[in-house]
């Protein structure tokens, strides 16, 4: 178990290191002169020189890379060129929208998907199974931002239950802030839930076909307890894998959905940063998102070890 943990941790750190090299190479080395890229062709020489000075572009690549990564480690992400504030402050402010949104969507989609998957698997071939899986099939096909538009049309434009977009900030009270997040959460969670429900059902049915289920039935375990006590835990390995992958999609989804609802989150920040070519913000936020994907993958690997004793070997 110890060796397994150590190995996975080492792999995650290596991936993180390589990812930082990729981000640095793409955004600071490939463009040649990042300062010119940020300011455009008709920038004044003085402005260019000032920005080069601020970004430390005169220094050798290695020094710049080390300065950037040590900054990342101490959460000193530099100053945003367009907003003229520390990027770390910007990120923290935006996280207060994005993080609750991502966590709420992940929770909601899991809470919907796993029960539906279990329900469908336990009634394989029956009407309930066909119906819920047909619905899931449609849910998988619907793009989340289109679904978001339809939700806006139905609940904001037509029924006027919730605001169509914007975010009052947590300072305006918990309820108004949460109200602004209801539709975005639904838009992200439901298509995800459709995928997860299908995976849960398939994994359960696969587990129910295994020999050990027959052994359990032969010792007198009923059809329903065999599902709960024997098949479910075995089915959790593929489910955890998909949940890990979904987190990456969820991050991407947050960027899109925040744009639909005009939410001042990380996604909108990075999106505005590319339009304004604010590379300092782009590289920090991309790195932050990449690191969170790597962290989630590590957690998924560790969950394998909790679920399945065979995985605990390095």
């Amino acid at each position, binding site marked *: 178990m*110890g*060796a397994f943990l*150590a190995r996975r941790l080492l792999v995650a750190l290596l991936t993180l290191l390589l990812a930082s090299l990729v981000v640095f190479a793409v955004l600071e080395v490939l463009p040649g002169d990042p300062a010119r890229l940020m300011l455009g062709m008709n920038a004044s020489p003085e402005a260019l020189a000032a920005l080069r000075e601020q970004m430390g572009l005169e220094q050798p690549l290695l020094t710049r890379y080390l300065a950037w990564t040590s900054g990342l480690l101490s959460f000193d992400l530099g100053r945003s060129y367009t907003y003229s504030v520390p990027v770390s402050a910007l990120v923290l402010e935006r996280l207060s929208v994005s993080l609750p949104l991502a966590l709420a969507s992940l929770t909601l989609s899991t809470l919907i998907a796993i029960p539906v998957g279990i329900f469908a698997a336990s009634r394989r071939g029956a009407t309930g199974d066909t119906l819920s899986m047909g619905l899931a099939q449609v849910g998988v096909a619907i793009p989340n931002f289109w679904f978001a538009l339809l939700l806006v049309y139905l609940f904001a434009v037509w029924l006027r239950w919730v605001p169509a977009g914007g975010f009052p900030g947590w300072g305006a009270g918990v309820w108004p802030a949460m109200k602004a997040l209801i539709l975005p959460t639904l838009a992200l969670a439901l298509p995800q839930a459709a995928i997860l429900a299908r995976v849960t059902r398939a994994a359960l049915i696969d587990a129910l076909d*295994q*020999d*050990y289920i*027959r*052994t*359990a*039935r*032969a*010792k*007198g*375990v*009923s*059809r329903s307890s065999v599902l709960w*006590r*024997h098949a479910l*835990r*075995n089915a959790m390995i593929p489910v955890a894998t998909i949940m890990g992958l979904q987190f990456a999609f969820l991050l991407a989804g947050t960027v899109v959905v925040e744009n639909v609802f005009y939410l001042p989150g990380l996604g909108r920040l990075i999106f505005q940063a590319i339009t304004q070519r604010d590379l300092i913000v782009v590289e920090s936020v991309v790195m932050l998102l990449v690191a969170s994907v790597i962290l989630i993958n590590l957690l998924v690997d560790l969950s394998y070890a909790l*679920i*399945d*004793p*065979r995985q605990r*070997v*390095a």
Partner: protein
Amino acid sequence: MSLLALQNLSVTIDGKPILRGIDLSVESGRTVALVGESGSGKSMTALSVMRLLPRNAAASGTITLSGIDLMHATERQMCTLRGGRVGMVFQEPMTALNPVKTIGEQIAEGIRIHLRSTFREAQDRAAGMLDRVGLPGMLHRYPHELSGGQRQRVDIAIACAAEPELLIADEPTSALDVVIQKQILDLLQNLASERGMGLLLISHDLAVVADRADEIVVLKDGAVVEHGKTIDTLRTPAHPYTLELTRASSRLPARPRRHEAALSPLLETRNLTRDYVERRTSWLTPRQPFRAVDSASLSIEPGQSVALVGRSGCGKSTLARMILGLDRPTSGEILFEGKPLHLEDRQGLNEARRAMQVVFQDPYGSFDPRQTVEKLVAEPLHLLPQRLGKAERHERVAEALAQVGLSAESLSRYPHEFSGGQRQRLAIARAIILRPKLIIADEPVSALDVSIRARILELFADLNARLGVAYLFITHDLQVARAVADEVLVMDNGHIVERGPPSNVFDRPQTEPAKALVAATPDLGRTLAQHSAI
């Protein structure tokens, strides 16, 4: 009233008849053997009793357990009967246990369901059950930490935990080697007799059940062809099919001795050794190398037939793979026709392979399902220095097929269109297409039914006589070794521990491993002879 009685049991799957009117009964404290070849319906009979048939199956007839009508019992009643009054042990120990639960949990589960014990009581009983099956103190182990034989003991513990009156064992030892097989069967019989259970023992192997079952029921194509007291039935079979089975299972005629002494050996290995590095379990402990083959030296003369016997995991397949150039020796030498073989020397290796071919165990796994017979059988022609023309290749394949008794019509067909025995003929055709001097056969008949096994062994003997091919037969089955070999090598824990003519090794084994193998091997002829002496 019988403990278990089946009357006129018929089962269809998707309308296709699988069982046709089976009658069978088991009394308390007695062992009944249900014997038949693959596809005869043995397992379906067992699953009918458990009411665990596949969804698309339909059963008719009557099944009673101590007078209780099982055919019309509700699912809830069946749940109290399964495990509670009928326990079942399955064939495949590697997949029969839930990989994510400890074996203690899995044994205790049945106890808690049927005896309504508390968690502690169930744990204690499970621990006692593990002691009884010979796995003391293993309550908290997971299935993947156990060997196949140990897992089968766990399966038995699960089946017997709630003290059922009837135990059904469906091919409980087919996946295990002979020494473990004997231990498992002894355990089953001892448990049955000490608890007065009825035992329904299902097997494809007459020799296995001959000295264990009180009664025998022979099944063919879903119908009972013969039943009666075991020894009487096997000594004087009334049905031609039973006669055929007993003949095929009895001692096969030993092959005539050859007397010509060769000048130089065809194949020689000198102190061949193979170490595997085990997976690391912790970074603190150093990796432990595992020695699969330890200084094995052997030599095979042209036209000689050598059998390499041993329990599973003794290193015999690793040795064969090294000879074939499929695995790298850690140290030692392989000489083919006097020339040393090295994996780096592709040309020399391919030259040797032209004269040295292979036949594998599994007639289903040894062919690419997506290629035609012509392509598959022609595969070794790749080793020839020049490429053959289409017509010539076609002719060579047809000739090889004719040698093994298959018609040229087979050329354009796919492997799944052939039966197990025919596929093994195809495998032999592939091996002889280059007219090799040596064929290495890794358990070539152990996946076949006994009646087919005898015919394939005849084919091997025939090819040896006609083409002068030498064989290295790798087998765990001493009957097979006796039938085909001029010389026997016994392997144990990576060492070749004993060698000599079959009659010496099998009738007067000298070393412990050889003695254990001989003692554990079921022998129908010996069983029948012993009983007639009484």
